[in-house]
């Protein structure tokens, strides 16, 4: 991983540079980094403005300033190194330590280099959307800079400057409870707590600092804040928060819905314990985990399935269809983004069909709650894919938007047909469009390479074959899933000329390839393709050989998130899958070493392919360069809400 990342910084400076540079920037200046406003420009320091991303970046996606990242990293970083933070050097030291903090623990969604695109409009200085993003900042710990923008607009410049330091405070106080996403109450409470802690800290005079701070994040932040301006702090925060609320009031709700939930960080022990208590599926944490991937859930795979199976009749509110899908996820009977999504949606259709509103409850709310509980069950079985997240958002949105005047049966019918339409339009319909587009790129005599078993690509190949195009297919595969073999079987059955090889041979086989067709689990808004592990390798080799890489991906899998590496958000598979070969007892050299403390298995499921290896993304909205993904995301999202 490390070796890949270093060259990446060179290959793709526009993205990388921003992330790395700004991470070392002082807090107050970076907060106004992306401010196009003259008011704030006066406040920012000159050297910073030269490397402002809006200044030199050509990327279609404005990379939000590092503030966001830091705000994510702050509280927990403090928790981790709580005792080490000296109150006076608060902003400085935390800045410096930032990369560590973000890797080891962060309560936010994406610790490393992954941002939410919602802050892009801010950078483009659209005032109306600026409000929105500010609201988003409030609700979901999106960059504090968003907050700054607004406060500059609403408040006298002098005050805003003063507030900029404080806003970090208010922001990371919010972040201290990122899971709840509460606004006013939580904030007030945080302030209260902060003051209390400050008092306590004043009493012990820093000597017992660690003891006080180690416990709660809020108190840490308070303590850090104390020497700065204990008296004015409350006012500033209140003003900033108040202003933010007033302005962001109406749009806040929508934003909140859009903002992805903060992802659980599995190296945060207290949270893991808490989550475990809630969990339906018994999750035994795997012992030897790779350090870099500690924040991802990894469980002992052997025990989960039997345990869940024995509880079959004991999960009272579970719908059988959902349960079945969960079991199939857990056992790996269903895999692949489209199939998982369709299976889930079908289960939800069943749920809707069998649903009846309990007395004295509202259909919209009760069903949303129900779906949420099912979703959390499914997440326990296997982390959601991004496509599923989008589909869930769609379903919930439809439920919420159901007119209250509809009778229950009408509402149910409407929902069912909505879900049906989603499947037909967004998945199957999209695939047919993709096939149409992609086939036009296949010429006679082509040698096409594909990796794994992407559904869309398979359809493309089959359709091209039906059109009697003369081409040859190279199926590249990898252990442990060997999905390519299934694809191979189906292609051969249709009479397509195929070659099968493993990914080890990729550099050799690439000579003869004319086009690479890949599937994707998701395409992120900086053009990064998030896909089955190994895809990045194939794409990289292809681009090194100047072979065009075409990614077939339905637009419902697009996501506004930005991700620069495959570390912060990924999935860990069963370590046994790579340590053992089924049916080959003779080559199980690792027998008995599974629990050795010196051995850690890493079975990554996905990787992120940087956009510069990708020539074209074929989606249901046409063939676009990876740089156009944010446009589709934006348009699509709009449509998404209106559907």
């Amino acid at each position: 991983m490390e070796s890949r990342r270093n060259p990446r910084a060179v290959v793709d400076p526009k993205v990388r540079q921003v992330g790395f540079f700004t991470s070392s920037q002082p807090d107050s200046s970076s907060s106004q980094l992306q401010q196009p406003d003259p008011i704030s420009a006066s406040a920012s320091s000159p050297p910073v403005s030269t490397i402002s991303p809006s200044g030199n970046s050509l990327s279609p996606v404005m990379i939000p300033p590092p503030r966001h990242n830091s705000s994510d990293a702050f509280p927990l970083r403090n928790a981790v190194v709580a005792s080490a933070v000296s109150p006076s050097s608060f902003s400085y030291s935390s800045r410096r330590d930032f990369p560590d903090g973000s890797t080891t623990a962060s309560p936010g969604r994406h610790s490393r280099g992954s941002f939410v695109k919602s802050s892009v409009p801010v950078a483009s200085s659209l005032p109306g959307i600026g409000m929105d993003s500010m609201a988003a900042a409030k609700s979901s710990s999106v960059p504090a800079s968003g907050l700054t923008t607004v406060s500059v607009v609403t408040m006298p410049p002098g005050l805003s400057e003063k507030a900029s330091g404080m806003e970090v405070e208010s922001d990371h106080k919010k972040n201290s409870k990122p899971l709840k996403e509460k606004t006013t109450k939580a904030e007030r409470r945080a302030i209260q707590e902060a003051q209390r802690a400050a008092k306590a800290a004043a009493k012990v005079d820093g000597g017992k600092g660690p003891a006080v701070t180690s416990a709660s994040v809020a108190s840490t932040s308070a303590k850090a804040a104390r020497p700065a301006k204990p008296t004015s702090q409350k006012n500033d925060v209140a003003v900033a928060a108040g202003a933010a609320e007033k302005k962001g009031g109406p749009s806040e709700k929508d934003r909140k819905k859009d903002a992805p939930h903060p992802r659980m960080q599995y190296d945060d022990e207290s949270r893991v314990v808490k989550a475990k208590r809630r969990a339906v599926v018994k999750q035994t944490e795997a012992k030897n985990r790779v350090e870099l991937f500690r924040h991802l859930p990894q469980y002992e795979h052997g025990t989960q399935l039997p345990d869940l199976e024995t509880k079959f009749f004991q999960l009272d509110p579970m719908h059988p269809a959902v349960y079945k899908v969960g079991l199939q996820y857990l056992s790996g009977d269903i895999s692949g983004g489209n199939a998982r999504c369709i299976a889930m949606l079908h289960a939800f259709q069943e749920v809707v069909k069998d649903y009846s509103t309990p007395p004295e409850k509202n259909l919209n709310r009760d069903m949303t709650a129900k779906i949420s509980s099912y979703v959390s069950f499914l997440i326990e079985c296997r982390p959601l894919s991004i496509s599923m997240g989008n589909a869930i958002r769609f379903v919930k949105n439809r439920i919420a938007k159901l007119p209250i005047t509809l009778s229950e049966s009408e509402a149910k019918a409407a929902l069912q047909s909505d879900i049906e339409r989603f499947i037909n339009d967004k998945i199957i319909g999209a695939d047919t469009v993709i096939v149409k587009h992609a086939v036009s790129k296949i010429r006679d005599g082509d040698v096409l390479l594909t990796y794994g078993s992407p559904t869309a690509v398979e359809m493309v190949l089959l359709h091209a074959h039906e059109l009697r195009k003369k081409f040859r297919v190279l199926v590249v595969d990898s252990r442990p899933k060997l999905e390519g073999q299934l694809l191979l079987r189906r292609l051969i059955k249709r009479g397509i000329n195929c070659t099968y090889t493993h990914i080890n041979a990729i550099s050799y086989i690439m000579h003869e390839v004319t086009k690479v067709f890949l599937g994707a689990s998701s395409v992120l808004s900086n053009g990064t393709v998030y896909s089955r592990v190994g895809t990045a390798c194939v794409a990289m080799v292809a681009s090194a050989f100047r072979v065009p890489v075409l990614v077939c991906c339905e637009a419902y899998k697009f996501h506004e998130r930005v991700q620069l590496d495959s570390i912060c958000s990924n999935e860990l598979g069963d370590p046994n899958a790579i340590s053992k070969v089924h049916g080959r007892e003779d080559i199980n050299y690792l027998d008995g070493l599974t629990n050795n403390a010196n051995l850690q298995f890493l079975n990554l499921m996905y990787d992120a392919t940087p956009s510069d290896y990708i020539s074209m993304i074929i989606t249901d909205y046409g063939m676009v360069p990876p740089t156009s993904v944010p446009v589709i995301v934006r348009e699509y999202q709009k449509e998404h809400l209106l559907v």
Partner: protein
Amino acid sequence: QNQNQNPRKLETSPCFLFTVNSVAKMDFQVVILAGGFSSTLFPLVSKEVPKALLPVANRPVLSYVLDLLESNNLKDLIVVVEGEDAALKVGGWISSACVDRLHVEVAAVAENVGTAGALRAIAHHLTAKDILIVSGDIVSDIPPGAVAATHRRHDAAVTAMLCAQPVSGPSESGGSGGKDKTKKPACEDIIGLDSWKQFLLYIAKGTEIKKDTRVKKSILCAAGKMELRSDLVDSHIYAFKRSVLQKVLDQKPAFRSLKQDVLPYLVRTQLRSDVFSDQSNVEENGNGNGKNNMQNNEVVLSQILSNASSPSFHQVYESGLDSRKTHKCCVYIADESKYFVRLNSIQAFMDVNRDVIGDANHLSGYSFSAHHNIVHPSAELGSKTTVGPHCMLGEGSQVGDKCSVKRSVIGRHCRIGSNVKIVNSVVMDHATIGDGCSIQGSVICSNAQLQERVTLRDCQVEAGYIVCVGGEHKGETFARK
């Protein structure tokens, strides 16, 4: 066949009424086949005591099944009993024992119709998508949810639960003789599994196989590899897809037994299934009202779904030969640490009684004393009488002086004289045992009477039978002809 069937709804308390209307849990209906007056257990069962009510540690064996199901949150049950009289008895017991805990319906079917016949008789009561069929004579702690979950996961036609062969005969630590005599045939079931131990490829009773047996070539080819196991037994807990089960029962009126006829039939025909043939028609009709486009979508959809999962050999086979339909026969193999015994022989009866107050005492539901035994407070013990570990002494029983009880279950209100030795035995309620008797490895049914100085070894005494003074018997069965 005219089954005089008489499903009786039992009284349910008001607080439980709502579950009556509720849909079957997870779309599973539970049927308990409680049997009737089994002939294999002959002197133990009688007109008064049907098989389901045989006491295991002074509780009817059926109560173990009900407890198991209840602990798994299955509270709507159908109990099928062979014979009107037996049904009355079983129904009476259930209504007294679990009146406000469970919702149980008892159905009586004609005697000797077999398990398949019994299901045929109650077929019209089955409405859920899947049926969980549990034999009424098992004592186990294997959660039935597991088999149901496996069934659902694979969308199987039938799923059978297999477990490790129970240890038979008195345990080694028992220290008494008579081990080898009671040994059962070495293997009960021959079971063929695929290499992932998920699918059932072959099943036969060990006793049926003389020298050679036939295995379907097509199945063997499709699965590639078959593992024949004789260390597993069929636990008689099955999950059936209702449509399949009803179809088989309809199509094959000759089938009498689930285990010997229906299950092997389904296993045999898994690659050329008849049971699904018209189901797909129904499906197509259901979707047919849409446009052509819709149907096309359905095809694509099912393709995506089937391509996504790694196919079982069924699907591979199906795709190889277009028109063939297949169904899946799955297995769930219970963990070896779980306890499982089927009460289907006298030896098994002894084993179960021994285990429930011994090794598997978590099943009994009693709390054991410090001496690992249960002596009811109202039981009276004479002077110098010892009750060893792994013993149970029921309510109101009297034991005279200088007696010794080891590894035995003694029922309620028994009267046992002085100088009696009881080892590895079961004495049921209201039995009377005279002075100086010695009982080893025997079953004394209720109301039986042993006069003075009787020595029994590996004997069974029928209910109400009187064994005369001073007899010395070995391996006999006492019953009125």
